[in-house]
């Protein structure tokens, strides 16, 4: 198990800055996910750790070892970093069989023949590809190619695993299976893993910790639970969660002891909202945290059911209250029809408040 330390890494392509002074420590044995929209600098960061990208500034430590520092004049080439990297495209060598794809690097390491055979066999066994060892990559399905790429990597027993959107080229069903396999692999190898994805669900299921990036900067760095429940700003709040979080812009109103946020047609309890300069705030509520009743309830607000979208395990409801439209999620396949009246209510503890100007979270902890 090795720790990865990134401090102040920066990379620009011409005028465009891909990564801004990024600081990040990945703990030994941790599964860390870098999450963000396409073009936010995830791949660049990952490739910098592997040594494939020349950084403009900053330092990178792998374990105790300094592998990059422009100021101190250190650049350890990728060949010597001993990290494992899975490319988005898998990057299998098309002119070699599965077996050869795996053994080439082992030979380079100067291992003896029996050792090479043993390691290749074990790696193939781990990804259940032993039967197809004689095939060429073009004769394999996407999922099988993925497994070969994994086998090729783990045969070298790297202490650090880097994966760049490894599941993005697979179909939805296979993606779910491979997800758990990759996690299992991480646990079995006891490696430190950095996983890059733009899929928030993947990030939430796999990670010990998530780093959300946007435009080359880190927006938040926390556990999946923390990121989901207490997003640090509006961008994170909107990026995480499916269906998307509800945003209700409104004005803060003091009524006796209680604070309320009054939006267009809705009122939300706002005791957790900290005072800000202006009185305008944006409340954010997860779709599953809005209570719902089909019969009138004392103190609840009336709303209109616009649309019903059952997905099987859950049902998504589109609701409007005054000028505010809200998304709700209920477990199960609800058999109600659009057009009826509903009553909704908010749990004060699950509402997060954001300053619409700075986009920062301004809720009390």
């Amino acid at each position, binding site marked *: 198990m090795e720790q990865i330390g990134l401090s102040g890494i920066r990379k620009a392509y011409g005028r465009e800055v891909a990564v801004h002074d990024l600081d990040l420590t990945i703990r030994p044995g941790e599964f860390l996910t870098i999450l963000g929209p396409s073009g936010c600098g995830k791949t660049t960061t990952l490739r910098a750790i592997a040594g494939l990208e020349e950084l403009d500034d900053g330092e990178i430590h792998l374990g105790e070892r300094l592998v990059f520092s422009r100021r101190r*004049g*250190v*650049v350890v080439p990728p060949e010597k970093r001993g990290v494992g990297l899975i*490319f988005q495209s898998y*990057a*299998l060598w098309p002119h070699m069989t599965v077996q050869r794809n795996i053994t080439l690097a082992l030979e380079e390491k100067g291992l003896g023949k029996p050792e090479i055979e043993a390691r290749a066999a074990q790696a193939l066994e781990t990804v259940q590809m032993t039967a197809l060892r004689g095939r060429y990559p073009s004769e394999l399905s996407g999922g099988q190619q993925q497994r070969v790429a994994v086998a*090729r990597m783990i045969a*070298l027993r790297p202490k650090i695993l880097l994966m760049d959107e490894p599941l993005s080229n697979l179909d939805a069903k296979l993606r779910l299976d491979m997800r758990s396999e990759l996690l299992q692999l991480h646990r079995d190898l006891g490696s430190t893993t950095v996983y890059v994805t733009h899929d928030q669900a993947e990030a939430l299921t796999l990670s010990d910790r998530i780093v959300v990036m946007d435009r080359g900067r880190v927006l938040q760095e926390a556990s999946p639970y923390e990121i989901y429940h207490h997003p640090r700003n509006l961008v994170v709040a909107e990026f995480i969660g499916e269906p998307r979080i509800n945003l209700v812009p409104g004005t803060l109103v003091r009524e006796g002891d209680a604070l309320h946020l009054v939006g267009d047609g809705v009122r939300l309890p706002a005791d957790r909202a900290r005072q800000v300069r202006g009185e305008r705030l944006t409340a954010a509520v997860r779709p599953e945290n809005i209570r719902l009743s089909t019969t009138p309830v004392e103190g609840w607000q009336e709303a209109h059911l616009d649309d019903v979208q059952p997905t099987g395990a859950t049902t998504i409801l589109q609701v409007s209250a005054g000028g505010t439209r809200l998304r709700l999620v209920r477990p199960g396949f609800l058999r109600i029809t659009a057009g009826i009246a509903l009553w909704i209510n908010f749990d004060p503890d699950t509402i997060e408040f954001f300053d619409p100007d700075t986009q920062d979270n301004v809720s009390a902890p």
Partner: protein
Amino acid sequence: MTSQAMGQRLRYHGFRLRNRPDLIIGFVCLVALAFLVLAPLAEIILDALTLQPYDLAYIPDGVVGSFSLFHLERVFASPLSPALFFRPLLNSLAIGFWVTLIGVSIGTLLAWLLVRTDIRCKGLLGALVVIPYMMPSWVMALAWISLFKNDRIGGSQGFVAGFFGVNPPDWVSYGFFPIVVTLALHYFAYAYLLMSGALATVDSELEEAGATCGMGRWKRLWRITLPLLMPALGSAIVLTFIRILGTFGTPALLGLPVRFFTFATQIYASINARNNGDAFVLALVLIVIAISFIWINSRIIGIRKSFVTLTGKGFRRREVRLGLWRLPLTVAVGLFIASTVLVPLAILLWESLTLMAGDYRLDNLTTYFWIGQGNVRLAYGESGVLLNDGILRALWNSLKLGILAALCNGVLGLLVGYAVVRGRGSRLSKALEGIAFAPYIFPSIALGAIYIGMFSSPIGPLPALYGTFAILVLITVVKNLPFTSRTGIAAMLQIDKSMEEAARVLGIGWFRRMARIIVPLSMSGLVSGMLLTFITAMRELSLIVLLLSPANMVLTGVIFYYQEQAMPQHSSAVTLLLVLIIILVNVLVRLISRSAGVGGLKNG
């Protein structure tokens, strides 16, 4: 900056270089190519503007190495100028103009017929039509001489004179007219290759764009097809013209006997007369003309688009129906191709089998010039071609030259492609790409002249290469570099960057990455590039004629020598031998690489 910070910066860049083999390769290639391409050019400019030892015959009290306009004056403004400069200039330009016009027209017409119409026997005709490309450009000239030689020069008579007893007039036998005809019948193949590639690719684009927006047939031709063909047509014209400017064999064979000079033959004559200065000035003029042409072409067509290289993938889409014309046109094309390929070879074969040159009766046939031995009354006692030590040595040299040049070009093309593609966008990459393309602008004979200037004396640790075998390899490699580096770049662009990066991360070092991943993946492109270099090297004369000596004689040089010595049977037999070997190797390499799964070899 403190010295410590300085040291760290240096250390960083040291590490960085170790990390980026492409930068090192790129830099080394750049320096080497600058030395092989730009330095010689600078050298002959300098030589042309200073007094040289051989000038002292004219200016006894001159100081060698001092600045002087002597050469310029001699070439441009002296009583010699008309003979030395103006007449050859006019001849070269006129030949260039007519050959380009005729050759490109024929080539384009053939390309259109074979790619876009439903003409019959496409496969066979398409394979035959590129054979001229594999023959020396002056095979046709040799055949012409055999056919139309008259009694003007003395020695034996030609076919026509022998058979019909009519002496062809001078203008038919020698000079401008036969030079234009024979060159056009060779160089149409180049235009054909370029245009057929362009026509095949234009097709699909045309279908997408034009038809969907309901353009009429002629409007489509005018607005879409022609503009798309313009780049290929432009390069076909410029390429042919530059080649004609630099071609030596044909104007030498058909022009020198009647003292009809082109630039190329005048350069040769000046070098032979030890007036290298004149030759250098003429070579520079040739280069200036070539550059102006490339410049004008790129102005008209746009710089990016103006350099289309040869690709020969010809596939049909919608074919124009020839209807009634189908059969006659097929026959006409077949006859034309036969007359450019089979007829000259047949004539040379017959010629090589005649005992007394110029006597074409059947009872005059002999195999002496192939397998005869030391008859002092025949051909100055020279043995037949297959038993002749001098010829066999030249054959061996030719093969060595072809193979070495092909290997060097393959490696160099790979490395240049690697450095250019990996460094895409950097200044180094652009400079390297540019300089690898530079030999394109030197007409062959001019490059030869430049190399005389550069390598006739030792340079640092390098001994004088003039007259050695090495200089032939060197100049062949350099001349073919524009093509091979393009092949290398194209091949490298097809290999995803991640192929190599995956290997790096897995700890595989540079040499093994090259050997195990890059080379195998770019093999098919490299093989066709190398095959082309081999063919070009084997049939080349213009490029190396100035650099040949008895020690490094090659087959093309031998042919030229025998022709000069009025030994047509020998020159015909050696020519046949040469063409046979080239075609054989070509077929062999294609077969081997197909069975080895390299596949995807292109014509040309």
